[in-house]
């Protein structure tokens, strides 16, 4: 068994399933604010795993920790058997060549057109001939349905198109995994549908492992094999989407069904209203 293929016993996943990412006892703070307080997460190979939770719970931070852009206060993150935060710069960059990341904003280079954006990682890390590079870029763009948009500049793209270009770029080096940071936020229904379909299709066709960070319950549950719900720095619940939708936990039910009040109160903590109103100054 390879180093990164330890067996998971957590949750309801099949025993013996190989893990690509293993997070153990993760602690991370920003200033005085604790973002993660002893989080354990396993990301199985070849699956779409969703990390869900309300805004501000550190979902994007988790992706940056997995990608080695942030360093945890305590705990370990292993990707394909490598402890991300003990790697030197060169080894980390070598690992990142096997990871793709789709940023919420797309993060396209604004002075390059669509073709050059997708070609960028290939130009940086390979010595392919120009004709081979062209073919590869066009194939990647074809996979996201934007071959015809290759001459457009990022400023000329809609939000959904920008994310699809970013997805083509993230796949350019044929990574083993792709991390999606809030891919559905601010998308119209058509773009949303396209992205949902693409994430699932690409995962299965390219035998990827996908980590999907989102708080869009319906879209995420439609494509995820496994869902982790996090809040207050901890994993609240984990399991297949259907199991979480039917969960008996008040917190999970409130989040998964979008209930306005529950364990997460509608009101931000504040003093008594009457006392606050008649006290005078704010």
């Amino acid at each position, binding site marked *: 068994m390879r180093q990164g293929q330890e067996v998971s016993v957590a949750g309801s996943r099949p025993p013996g399933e190989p893990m690509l990412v293993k997070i153990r006892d993760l602690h991370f703070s920003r200033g005085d604010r604790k973002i993660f307080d002893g989080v354990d997460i396993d990301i199985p190979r070849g699956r779409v795993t969703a990390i869900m939770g309300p805004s501000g719970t550190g979902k994007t931070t988790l992706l940056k920790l997995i990608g080695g852009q942030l360093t945890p206060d305590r705990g370990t993150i292993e990707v394909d058997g490598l402890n991300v935060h003990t790697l030197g710069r060169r080894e980390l960059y070598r690992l990142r*060549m096997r990871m793709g990341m789709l940023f919420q904003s797309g993060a396209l280079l604004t002075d390059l057109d669509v073709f050059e954006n997708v070609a*960028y*990682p290939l130009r940086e890390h390979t010595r392919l001939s120009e004709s081979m590079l062209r073919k590869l870029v066009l194939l990647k763009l074809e996979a996201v349905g934007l071959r015809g948009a290759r001459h457009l500049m990022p400023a000329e793209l809609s939000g959904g198109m920008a994310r699809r270009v970013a997805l083509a770029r993230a796949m350019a080096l044929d990574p083993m995994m792709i991390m999606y940071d809030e891919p559905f936020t601010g998308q119209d229904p058509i773009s949303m549908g396209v992205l949902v379909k693409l994430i699932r299709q690409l995962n299965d066709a390219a035998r990827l492992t996908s980590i999907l960070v989102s708080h869009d319950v319906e879209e995420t549950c439609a494509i995820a094999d496994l869902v982790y719900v996090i809040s207050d720095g901890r994993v609240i619940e984990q399991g297949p989407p259907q199991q979480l939708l039917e969960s008996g936990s008040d917190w999970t039910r409130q989040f998964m069904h979008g209930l306005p009040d529950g364990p997460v109160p509608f009101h931000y903590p504040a003093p008594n209203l009457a006392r606050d109103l008649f006290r005078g100054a704010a």
Partner: protein
Amino acid sequence: MEALARLGAGWIRAVRHLGRALLLLLRILEGQSELLQRPRLLLEQLFSVGVLTVLIIAVSGLFVGMVLSLQGYYILSQFAAESALGVMVAASLLRELGPVVTALLFAGRAGSALTAEIGLMKATEQLSGLEMMAVDPVRRVLAPRFLAGFLAMPLLAALFSALGVLGGWFVGVGLLGVDDGTWWVQMQARIDWNEDLANGVIKSLVFGFVCTWIAVFQGYNSLPTSAGVSRATTRTVVHSSLAVLGLDFVLTALMFK
């Protein structure tokens, strides 16, 4: 006691800031070797940092030379020393005004643009995107900009001084009647290669180094928000201007003691 603690905290912040800037500078210098393999990155930045700054430098140099000639003439004519006008204009430009005013204009035009560009790349996650593509943004984005600024400054200062001399000649010889031959012969005889020209070039190299370092550091260190980028851009202009004026005094004291 509280004021003392605040003062101490301020100093610690400043030292930490300086430490971060020094570490970034080391990484930028380390990344220079890669530019030999990718000269195109440097050429693009030389255009953006240098060529696009030429117009403001040229126009300013011309007017500064004209004013210098006008003011110099009124003073020198009181001592019947108008013949030294050309030397005075050229020496002032080569020793001081060329490097200093060019650096101040550079900080306002190119330095602020560098900070804003890098800051916006950070705010729009382009730098994070590069990192996740296993591309070091310090080597790809910061290193070529730094070298371009360092190389462009002495060239811009030379242009400023050359056009300043021409502007001074136009006013002194063309409008105020100073003898054309005297203007050029005196300048040729009295301007010293080391004392005037080389010292001016050294000054502009130092200013180029410092101004570009401040600009790229402020951009890279800016908060990834519109207000953060705006504050970083302002800091670039203020810090660069103060650094140029302070260093000019130190360099002048060392060079002309």
